[in-house]
Structures are given as C-alpha cells and as structure tokens.
C-alpha cells in the first residue's frame, strides 16, 4: 500500500499567509542542544560532551518562547542535537505547551523508552518526527555510532499505536543508501509517513565537510528510487513526463534584476534559534544572524525579517528551465558556494540527473 503524503493543515497555511502579510513569527524552531548521543558524520550539530558551554538554560528557552509567543508564534519545533539528552527537556516542553503553543519534536528516537515514552504518551506533542537512519543494526553502528535500530523502531511503533502523530525523516547518505528499500518497507509496516531526502547541505556550521554525502548523481538516483517506492507506477510516469517537459522550456534572456528573494517561510514567518541563542532564518544558513537574548525577541525578529528580505538568489536560477524541479534555495546556494546569489553546481547536476533518471526508469517500465 502507498501511504499518501498528508498536506499541511489548512489553518497552518492560512496562518503563515496571514503572518507573512502582518510580519508575524508563526513558527519557531528551537535547537535546544548541540549534544547528541549519535555521531552521524553528515550532521550539522552533534557534540558529544556532557555539557556544552554557551548552551541556553531552560529558563532562557522558556523566556524566548514566551516572547515569540507574544509576537504571534503558534507552532514550535523542539530539535537539536537530540532534544531528549537534556535533563530539563520536560520543563521546557511543559512550559511551552502551557503557553498555548503547538509543540512538535524532532528526535532520533533512541531515548524514547521507559519514562520518556510514558510521558510522551500522557502528554503528546502535536507531532513527533523520528529520524530513521537505517534498516538494520549494522547500518546504525556505521552511521550513528551505536546499534539503536531495534529500540528506535520500537519507539516508533509505540508512539504510532498510541495515536501520536508520528512521521519519519530519512536522510540518505553513503552510509545507509543500501537500506533505502528496507527503510521504505519499515515505514509501510509501521503505517508511518516517511519523508526522505538525499540532498545533504554542506554542514557549514561545523566546517562544511561534504565527504559524507552522495555525489549529485548518486543523490539523484536515490531520490528517484524513493519516488519509485512511494508513487504508484501511474503517478511516477506522470511525474517523469512532467520532469522531462522542463527540458523543452525555452531559456529566456538572463538579467540581474530577475534574481529572487527567499522562497520559503524562513525569515518571513519562521525562525531558527540555535543552541547558543543566535537566531537565523533557517538552521542551514550561516546568516543573517540576530541575538534575541541581547536585543529582545521582538526587535531581533524585526531585524531578521529586514535582513532576510535583502537576500537575493542567482538570476540564472530564476530563468532556468528546471526551476520547478530543482530544490535549490538561498540556503542551498550559500552553503554550497558561500553566497546566496551564486549558482550551486551540485543542485544543477542533481536536478539534471533526476530528470534523466526518472525518464530512463519510465521508459524502461514502458518497455516492460
């Protein structure tokens, strides 16, 4: 059975649209800690120390969340690192719920058992996103540094069975590429929606080493394989034809004034608070950066909106025939090239190969 992707609730879409008009920070991402019990090499934040100097206290997180709430925030995502490594996680979580925030959690799932699981079931989040890194213990050992596969699957099963809105995030890398089909099977067995991505941003916040990701062509093939798993043959064929049709679009003349701004909600209705209190439009971007602890949230948010609105993406991307296929954005550009207005070659190659590979699979299936 193919699990359809659920779209965003209508009210959330409405709130973001209204928030964009009114300048409201509708959604906040709270990177509660840089610490993680896993050590995935492609990750942008995974410190192993017991304590990290500069990590905000529970009191500071609660204060910032309260200020963001007063400014209009309704959706809050608690992430990390691994948020459950914080001993005071429940203090922050409970306080944010009591503020009338719809709190979601990102977790690797390995610490969700015993009392943590009981507490989650008794006081469920709006949604929990579990990163599933592989389909067996061996992959977990090589990618995450520990054999947590069984316990993660058990946590997903328990959350799902209790009725908690549980979803899977799948990061496809050289370490778990061989498990892709198995990961899909597990999501189907558990009845949990899974979202996979084979594009890994260069982790610029920790040096930017790209040795732990797939080549653009490998990433494209993995993305197409995932499409083959998640779509019916009819939907896949429709998509392959739509992708192919991009090549027929005539290139328009390129002009500098065609460059566009940030296309998503980052810095428009959403923000990312790093573990050390810096606020960014999104967690992947190195800037613009503001300091809500020093400035106060409202002033910091205004500055972030202003500075994000100045960002421009490459004019070449605005007129590229593959624009509707390519998932490039300001964050991709700046992490790949150091500038938001420079074309990210990795994305170009990945997009071209995605179109090629989808068409190849479609033709092969037609021939039977």
């Amino acid at each position: 059975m193919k699990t359809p992707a659920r779209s965003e609730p209508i009210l959330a879409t409405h709130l973001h649209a209204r928030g964009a008009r009114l300048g409201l920070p509708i959604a906040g991402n709270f990177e509660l800690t840089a610490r993680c019990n896993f050590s995935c090499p492609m990750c942008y934040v995974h410190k192993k120390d017991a304590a990290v100097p500069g990590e905000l206290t529970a009191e500071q997180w609660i204060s910032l969340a309260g200020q963001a709430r007063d400014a209009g925030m309704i959706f809050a995502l608690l992430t990390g690192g691994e948020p459950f490594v914080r001993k005071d996680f429940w203090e922050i979580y409970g306080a944010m719920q009591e503020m009338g925030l719809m709190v979601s959690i990102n977790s690797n799932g390995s610490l969700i058992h015993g009392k943590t699981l009981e507490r989650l079931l008794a006081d469920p989040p709006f949604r929990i996103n579990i990163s599933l890194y592989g389909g067996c213990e061996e992959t977990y050992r090589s990618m995450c540094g520990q054999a947590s596969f069984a316990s993660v699957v058990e946590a997903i099963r328990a959350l799902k069975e209790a009725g908690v809105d549980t979803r899977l995030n799948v990061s496809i890398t050289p370490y778990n590429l061989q498990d892709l089909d198995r990961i899909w099977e597990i999501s189907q067995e558990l009845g949990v929606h899974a979202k996979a991505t084979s594009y890994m941003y260069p982790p610029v916040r920790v040096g930017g080493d790209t040795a732990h990701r797939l080549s653009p062509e490998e990433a494209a093939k993995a993305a197409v394989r995932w499409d083959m798993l998640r779509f019916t043959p009819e939907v896949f064929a429709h998509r392959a034809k739509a992708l192919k049709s991009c090549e027929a679009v005539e290139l328009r003349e390129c002009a500098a004034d065609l460059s566009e701004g940030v296309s998503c909600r980052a810095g428009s209705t959403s923000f990312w608070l790093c573990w050390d209190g810096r606020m960014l439009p999104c967690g992947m971007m190195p800037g613009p950066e503001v300091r809500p602890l020093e400035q106060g949230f409202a002033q910091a948010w205004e500055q972030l909106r202003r500075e994000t609105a100045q960002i421009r993406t490459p004019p070449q991307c605005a007129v590229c025939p593959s624009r509707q296929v390519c998932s490039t954005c300001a964050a991709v550009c700046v992490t790949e090239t150091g500038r938001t207005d420079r074309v990210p070659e990795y994305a170009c190659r990945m997009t071209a190969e995605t179109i090629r590979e989808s068409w190849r699979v479609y033709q092969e299936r037609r021939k039977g």
Partner: protein
Amino acid sequence: MKIKKRMIKRQIGGETFLVPLGKAVYDSNGLYFLTEVGAFIWDLLPQAEDEDQIVAAVLDAYDAEEATVRADVAEFVEKLRGLEIL
C-alpha cells in the same frame, strides 16, 4: 457548561484560535478557528448553565435577531459536543 478538554484560546494576528493541550491533541486535527462571536461564547461557557444564558449574553452584546442567535448558539454548542469538547 463544562469544557471537558484542555484548550487554550489564542489571539494571533487579530484572529482567535483554540489550541488543544495534553491528551486533547489525540482527538483533534490541530487548531480550531473561532469567529468573533464564537470567541465571545467560548469565554461564557464555563459560567453558563444552559444555552439560554449564552443567548441572552449574545443579545446584550450584539445587535441581532433572537431567533438567529438562538440557532447559531445551538449550532456552536452542538459542534463542540460533537468534538467532545463540551
């Protein structure tokens, strides 16, 4: 009238929403939107003994026909009961 689920009323951008809390999250699809009059009635619910008291309060606050208000209040209360909020 007893509100059975933990819900918090929020004003966001001039609009009013109900946010489910705790186990109420299990039964909801997320947020609930309240119209201006819906938000007014929501605040009355804990003290109101029946729909008549709510209708009287709405008629005091708004210029409207009693029959219309009575029908609207009944519909609103019925919706809340359907969602097992009341």
